[in-house]
């Protein structure tokens, strides 16, 4: 609606709104850089995005259309000035996603399902313009949400009861009702209440992303839920993994001896011992065997707590065990948080922060080429999709926009296998149906990948009541379908599974492969030194890779500036005299809070805003 043009001078131009790009945008704007942030797509967060059900169907359809004819390469050479050269970017991002397959097992289309079929459903989906029926069920969601919160904080009686319930009653009563099948049209009608992430990750409570969110105050834009339990799949059964002290003591699966052994192990592992160092270089599994913990505990410790494989070296296994334990108990009974409305919120939160500090945002807008200053080999400007020349000192770009021949990627390219399921019940029903679970699934056969599964309930606002959203992720061995369908068939009830009426039914599922971003370097490509490449999502469970990358890009651009210092609390801001009389209350706060932040007041000039130093609550 706004046909106005963009300004033509910026410090940093950023193309792509994935997590890395968005963190860089927030960090740069925050310290006063003029940032222009663009994305060719109509939505935020690129391959980190989350979609409504209908939005996801559109996304799928776009993957399956033949790639659009590459835009007639517009010749921008007329815009060249002396001593300049053009570097064209590419606009195809479909290459990062492949092997898309969709199956629908809902009531109406029972026959239409034979793998791999897709197009009919999508056409049906696209055809059905969805008018939302608003009223119903929201209030009950609120209540549920509250229940599940209480549960998470009542650490005493939480988890263990859940584990046992699931074993004793095959299908506990409250579940029977919700297993009334949800139809496909219901999925479409209530589609906007799904928030389906393309990536599946969790936030380690003491991981770099949570630290960054808190440090920068970006956390004020999002809400989080605890992952309420960690499950594992063992001998075909789903079991709860006891993590915290309360879990261990409360567990009815563990014998008294096992409880003692586990507690002793978890307490001792925190400190480095000679015995541990003696095992360095040897598999963690050997180290665990040496502790004579028994099969049960060994399985939990290896697959669910360290989350490593059988041949991971001991030092690595110990490091991840310690990380797990450090994260435990910061917010709840497990080491993880999950953002309400899905992970796709997080990049947007950073974009909001950037905008609040003056960053200019423009979706559906791209950069066609870079202008290279031949005298110093630096990118001095970009040409946008309207042929406007925009000068910049730095250019940050999502990997997908960089032409293959200019990229230096670790070969062979690794990829991630993903599956997204909408199911009608939890893999481990418990007294509350509002559980957020991480399920670790060891390889189903030799050579098969380790699968991480996250099951989300409706109070995370990612799916509708009566359904669960299940994300499966692994490093690709074959296609996503080849890698993950054996796990799906084993743990869920699908037309391909046998004798599994007691398992949750899959209503709808999607498989796809995505390029693993961990193989992409920030620099070292055939690009000017002030152009920085951001990778897409990596296969790890946490966000370490993305945050580290964003910080390193920021350090390259602004070596002397602080990375994401806290944004002022709006309540601590006073408005200076000539434009705004500050209220008595604000003045009082101002006095208490003391000195102004230098540098910031510079920016405040002309806008009448002055910032008061934050109360250093972090240090108290």
């Amino acid at each position, binding site marked *: *609606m*706004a046909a106005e043009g963009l300004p033509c001078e910026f410090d940093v131009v950023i193309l792509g709104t994935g997590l890395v790009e968005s963190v860089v945008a927030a960090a740069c704007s925050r310290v006063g850089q003029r940032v222009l942030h663009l994305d060719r797509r109509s939505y*935020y967060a690129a391959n980190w995005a989350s979609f409504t059900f209908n939005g996801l169907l559109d996304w799928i359809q776009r993957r399956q259309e033949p790639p659009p004819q590459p835009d007639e390469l517009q010749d921008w050479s007329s815009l060249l000035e002396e001593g300049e050269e053009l570097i064209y970017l590419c606009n195809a991002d479909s290459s990062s996603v492949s092997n898309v397959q969709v199956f629908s097992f809902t009531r109406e289309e029972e026959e239409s399902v034979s793998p791999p079929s897709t197009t009919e459903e999508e056409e049906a989906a696209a055809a059905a313009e969805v008018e939302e029926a*608003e*009223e119903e069920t*929201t*209030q009950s969601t*609120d*209540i549920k949400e*509250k229940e599940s*919160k209480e549960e998470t*904080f009542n650490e005493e009686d939480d988890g263990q009861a859940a584990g046992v319930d699931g074993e004793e009653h095959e299908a506990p009563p409250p579940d029977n009702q919700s297993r009334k099948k949800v139809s496909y049209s219901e999925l479409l009608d209530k589609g*906007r209440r799904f928030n389906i992430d393309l990536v599946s990750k969790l936030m380690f409570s003491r991981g770099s992303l*949570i630290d960054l969110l*808190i*440090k920068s105050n970006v*956390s004020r*834009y999002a*809400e989080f839920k605890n992952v309420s339990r960690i499950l594992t799949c063992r001998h075909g059964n789903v079991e709860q993994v006891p993590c*915290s*002290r*309360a879990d261990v003591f409360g567990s009815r699966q563990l014998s008294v001896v096992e409880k003692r052994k586990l507690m002793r192990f978890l307490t001792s592992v925190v400190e480095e011992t000679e015995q541990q160092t003696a095992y360095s270089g040897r598999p963690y599994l050997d180290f665990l065997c040496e502790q004579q913990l028994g099969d049960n505990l060994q399985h939990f410790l290896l697959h669910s707590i360290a989350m490593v494989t059988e041949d991971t070296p001991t030092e690595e296994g110990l490091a991840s065990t310690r990380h797990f*334990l450090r994260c*435990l*108990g*910061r*917010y*709840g009974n497990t080491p993880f948080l999950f953002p*309400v*409305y899905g992970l*796709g919120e997080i990049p*947007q*939160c950073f*974009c*909001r922060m950037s*905008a*609040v*500090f*003056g960053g*200019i*945002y*423009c*979706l*559906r*807008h791209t950069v066609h080429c870079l202008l290279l200053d031949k005298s110093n080999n630096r990118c001095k400007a970009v040409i946008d999709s309207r042929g406007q020349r925009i000068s910049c000192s730095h250019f940050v770009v999502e990997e997908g926009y960089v032409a293959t021949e200019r990229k230096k990627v670790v070969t062979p390219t690794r990829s991630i296998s993903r599956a997204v399921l909408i199911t009608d019940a939890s893999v481990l029903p418990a007294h509350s149906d509002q559980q957020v679970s991480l399920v670790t699934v060891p390889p189903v056969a030799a050579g098969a990948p380790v699968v991480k599964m996250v099951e989300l309930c409706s109070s995370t606002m990612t799916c509708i009541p009566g359904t669960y959203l299940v994300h499966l992720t692994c490093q690709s061995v074959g296609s996503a379908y080849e890698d993950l369908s054996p796990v799906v068939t084993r743990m869920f009830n699908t037309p391909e599974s046998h004798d599994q009426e007691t398992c949750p039914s899959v209503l709808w599922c999607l498989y796809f492969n995505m390029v693993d971003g961990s193989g992409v370097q920030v620099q070292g490509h055939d690009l000017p030194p002030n152009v920085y490449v951001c990778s897409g999502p990596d296969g790890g469970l946490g966000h370490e890779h993305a945050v580290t990358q964003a910080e390193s890009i920021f350090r390259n651009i602004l070596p002397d500036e602080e990375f994401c210092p806290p*944004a*002022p609390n*709006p309540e601590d*801001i006073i*408005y200076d005299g000539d434009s*705004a*009389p500050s209220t008595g209350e604000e003045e009082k706060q101002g006095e208490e809070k003391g000195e102004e932040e230098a540098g*910031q007041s510079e*920016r405040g000039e*002309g*806008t*009448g*805003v002055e910032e008061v130093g934050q109360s250093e609550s*972090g240090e*108290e």
Partner: protein
Amino acid sequence: MYVYYQSGDLPVFVFRMSMEDYDYLFKIVLIGNAGVGKTCLVRRFTQGLFPPGQGATIGVDFMIKTVEIKGEKVKLQIWDTAGQERFRSITQSYYRSANALILTYDITCEDSFRCLPEWLREIEQYANNQVVTILVGNKIDLAEKREVLRQRAEDFAEAQSMLYLETSAKESDNVEKLFLDLACELIREAKQNKLDNNDTAPMPGEGKTINYLSCCSLN
């Protein structure tokens, strides 16, 4: 506000009576085309001034004003678009958890009125189902330049079951009324919800997980 203590590996959350003195906290979010006067409305209400220039307010996330309604203290947290509406690039997360939306257009600008359905689509897509939406026609001080008749806007608002109000941020017409009416409506709804749930339902805006998240830096 939650305060977090750690003892052993067990987290303990203590609900501390908020240091701030209010009965309700509501998040109000402004939307509408660029230049219709959203920021002016907020600043008029929260600071009692009409900013002469159109300089962006850098670094300000939201503004706060506590009002008293029938003896109850209501804290209003009013969020602005941070300029992301200029190129139709508002993040979805901006709409989340808003208790009320103020959809603003400029009565002297037909185009800003014609864009309303587009904004309503975004609301439907991203905002909470229970969000209270109010349509505001701003700039009535420029009556001679009016392009959108009051009746037309009223009909539109009624068809969409929204409240409607015309304001002037410049002359301070109806600005106070806008926010106070909204606050009353939100209190009414909050009480209704509490009744419906027959439970000590959390007041909107309270008990957000975020509260203790930010408090965790106390460790």
